[in-house]
Every structure is written in C-alpha cells, then in structure tokens.
C-alpha cells in the first residue's frame, strides 16, 4: 500500500517526508528497544512516542513511515532530524488500535 493511500485511510496529516512510497507490514509499540528489534524495513511503525529517540530507531530500522496516533505531533528537534534523514512522519487522530484495524480491513479487501 502507498503511504498516500494510508494518509487518506487514517485521515492523517503529513508532518514530513514524501508519501510517494510503499509500505509493507505494520509494527505498533512505543518501547524503543522492543521497536528496535521488531520494526522491519519498509514497515509502517505506529506509535504515540514522538521524540528524537524515535527518529534514531527509525534511522536504524528504516520503516517506510512513522504513523503517530492520537494526533500526536513530533517535537521540533525530532522533526528536523527526521527531515534530515528523509523519514516520512504522519499523524492521525485515530488510536493505535484503530489505525491497525483500519489497515487490516483495507488489506483484507
């Protein structure tokens, strides 16, 4: 699925990065050393954590998109680092659970 399509599905706002990329698979979780070993390349990583350490983990694991749940907004220093590293970050009003359900439904069709 394209990240553009994901944005529409989740009613999400793009905080940085291009949405013209495909993602495959989803991981959701906020604890960084769990995410570190579970987020796979090109995943969508759904989290409510939005600090610079999330960006460091994403730099190493390379998800296609970081999806911030519950309208969380990324702190400016983190956003700057995300831009610098060409990460895509979007924010959705939905909860992490609702986001995962929506993606599952879409993928199941």
């Amino acid at each position, binding site marked *: 699925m394209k990240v553009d399509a994901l944005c529409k599905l989740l009613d999400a706002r793009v905080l940085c990065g291009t949405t013209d990329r495909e993602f495959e698979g989803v991981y959701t979780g906020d604890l960084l050393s*769990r995410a*570190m070993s579970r987020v796979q390349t090109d995943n969508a990583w759904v989290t409510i*954590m939005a600090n610079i*350490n999330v960006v460091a*983990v994403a*730099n*190493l*694991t390379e998800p296609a998109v970081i999806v911030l749940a519950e309208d969380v907004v990324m702190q400016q220093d983190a956003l700057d680092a995300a831009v610098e590293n060409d990460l895509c970050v979007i924010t959705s009003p939905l909860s992490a659970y609702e986001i995962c359900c929506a993606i599952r439904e879409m993928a199941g069709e």
Partner: protein
Amino acid sequence: MMSDVVKFHFDVDGSDFSSAGAASVSVKKKLRQLGYSPEVIRRVSIAMYEGEINMVIHANGGTADVEASDDKIVIVLADKGPGIPDVELAMQAGYSTAKDHIRNLGFGAGMGLPNMIKYTDDLRIDTVVGEGTTITMTVLL
C-alpha cells in the same frame, strides 16, 4: 592474505539524550558504504544502538570503537559508569533500573541487553562496580 580493517571511534556524550544513537547511525552509514549486507548492518546497528543508549542512560557516556573486517565486525563500548552489580539479572528480559523520566522517553523495557545477545555472535561484559563497564560484541559475517 591480510585484509584491511576499518576502524571507527566515537565519544558518546552522556549528558545529551537527544544525540543518543548518533554513533550507531553513523556506523550504519559507513558500513553501508563499505558494502556490508543489510542483514549484517541490521544486527550491528541494533546491538550497537542498545549498547550506546545504555552508556548514555546508565553510565553517563563513554566511548565506542568499531572494527570492521571481511570476516567480522567487533564493537567495543567502554564507560566509567557505576558498573553492573548482577550481570545475570541485568541480562534478563524485562529487567531495568531506568527511572521514570528515562522511561517516559521510551527506554526501560529491559530489552537492550537481550537484544545485544540476540543479534550478535559473541558478547562479553567486563564490569566492576564503581569503576565501569566494557562490552565487547562480535558479529560474524
């Protein structure tokens, strides 16, 4: 034939949570330029990141040295922090002494050391309470 060994050295700042992970990200980029496989880079990245973060949150910083050759990558993380009183306990999944303000940043799952074991072929911990900790990790190619 003796092959080239490429060495990297970093000073890891223990007072700055926002730059934590910088050495690992830098090593990742360098290993990619050197042509290591994505799988090896992933393993080194995860293990080194966990060790680097541990030095920042538990030991007030330290140094990181990486040696990359054609059969293995060795990562040495050395700090002059408090040391680890019970290594076996520290290695258990879920065990963490991280305080609340650290947990609020997303650390403290107690999965750092278990990840370091999982993603490396060898891990050695030399630690003396009150003096510091040196962790040596090897990833075989």
